[in-house]
């Protein structure tokens, strides 16, 4: 009886830890996305300030490629939108994972309690 509980306890614990790792990964990605969003917002602002004749370059590998201003602007805007979408997605994913974690925690605590009771019984018997 005690062993069964113990096994169950361990399994549950592993699941809990897995969920926790997932959450952490998601959080890191989200942070990166957040930084990129800020950067692109800055770029957008600068590009908006720039006058129409200015030359815009894009660094592709070791090459600086000339780009059209309007093209650059739209590119940056698309990127911003994309990043926003990703951000929302990851936010939802994190929330989901957190809920799962809560559930796992509850189960774990219950199992622990059972385990302790079983141990006490065993000690009382012996």
């Amino acid at each position, binding site marked *: 009886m005690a062993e069964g509980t113990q096994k169950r306890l361990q399994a549950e614990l592993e699941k809990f830890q897995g969920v926790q790792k997932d959450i952490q990964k998601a959080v890191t990605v989200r942070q990166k996305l957040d930084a990129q969003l800020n*950067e692109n917002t800055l*770029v957008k602002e600068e*590009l908006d300030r720039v006058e129409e004749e*200015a030359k*815009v*370059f*894009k*660094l592709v590998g070791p090459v*600086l490629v000339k780009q059209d201003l309007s093209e650059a602007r739209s590119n940056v805007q698309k990127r911003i939108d994309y990043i926003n979408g990703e951000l929302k997605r990851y936010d939802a994913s994190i929330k989901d994972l957190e809920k799962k974690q809560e559930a796992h925690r509850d189960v774990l605590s219950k199992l622990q309690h059972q385990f302790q009771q079983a141990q006490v019984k065993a000690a009382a018997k012996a």
Partner: protein
Amino acid sequence: MDTQHLQRLKVEQDKALAETDRQLQQWRQFHSDYVALKKRLSSLPMRITHEVMVPVGSLAFMPGRLVHTNEVLVLLGDNYFVERSASQAVDIVSRRLQELDTNLSSLQKQRELLMPRTQFTSDLITTEIAGQKEIVEPFDEEKETVWRERHKEYLRQAGQARQKGRAACRENPGKEAGPTDRQVWERLDQLELQESQRNELEGQSLRHTTQRTESRRGAEGYSSSEESTSQEEEEEEEEEGEEPVGQTQRVKVIRFSHTTLPDDSVDRGVGRSESATEDTLASIQSPADVYRLVKASPPSILRTRHSHAGHRHTDPSQFGDGQGKKVTFDPSGGVTFGPSGGTTLKDDAGTKDKADPFHVSTHKAFHDVVVERPTQLISGCHPLLDLTSTAPDGIPEGHNAAASTRPASRFQLARQKKT
């Protein structure tokens, strides 16, 4: 509060604080970089070309020339560059600096938030280590009232017991019923009496012993109030010279005899009796007697006319001994022993007797050689004649001699003009 938990908390808080500090440092670095960049950008277009050392690879430089001094490629972010003029680049830099400043201020606030937290935790840890604990007393209203009632009861009982004890003592006064400390006091009284008998300071001792006994009575407290009144009655009887019979424990014998203190106010001549000196000399049995015989009033802090006069002219025939001490002879008040002239006010001389037990005026105990000051007085006025003119100053006669050798003060001159 568990010390371990507190330590753990402190560790975490320190980590957070360190992180904030690191970030702060980084941002400050950026800030300084941008400022330098701004300076460079504003100085670039000042010249058409710049002679520079162009880095070639990572280890070599090559002398070259900066040609397009106004054209700057600015990295906007996300691999986007834009060609700008130097001044436009300066604008971009200024905007970035602004953002940096806001970031820095927010980081600073964060740090300020974290700091007191860590301090508080460390304080808790130190108090925990020192073993200080919060003293918590449970307060129960009902129990308090119950206790108060009981306390009143105890007090009442104690008071009653005291009353009974006092009544018992009053009925049996000769009984050895008192506490040990009373016996100790009585022993002390006896010892004091012995001491005072040896001492010749009659007036003082009488006063002091009565004071002492009274103060002791006060110290003994309420428990002996009844007995003390009875003791006072005994003492009154004793002072009259009788000793109550049968009360051996609490008898306080006070013996005193009167000495005829020399009257200062009466005889004020230069030729004071020297025989008295011999008598009093013989009666010196303790250092205190010396004080009595010699008027050793402490040097006055009042600024007198002859405050620095150590020597006074006197009749050398008066003194035979060659002790060589400094003595000021004051025909009005006697011999003053001290560096400054005695400020014996003639008006108070009579009262001084009672006030100052050390004031012995005419029994000149010192026979010294007095250094005479060359003065004009010897042919001139009699010291006594100047009494009236100098009395208000409190300076003994003969001041004229001393004053004449010194520059006279304004007031003295004014006074002399008047008289």
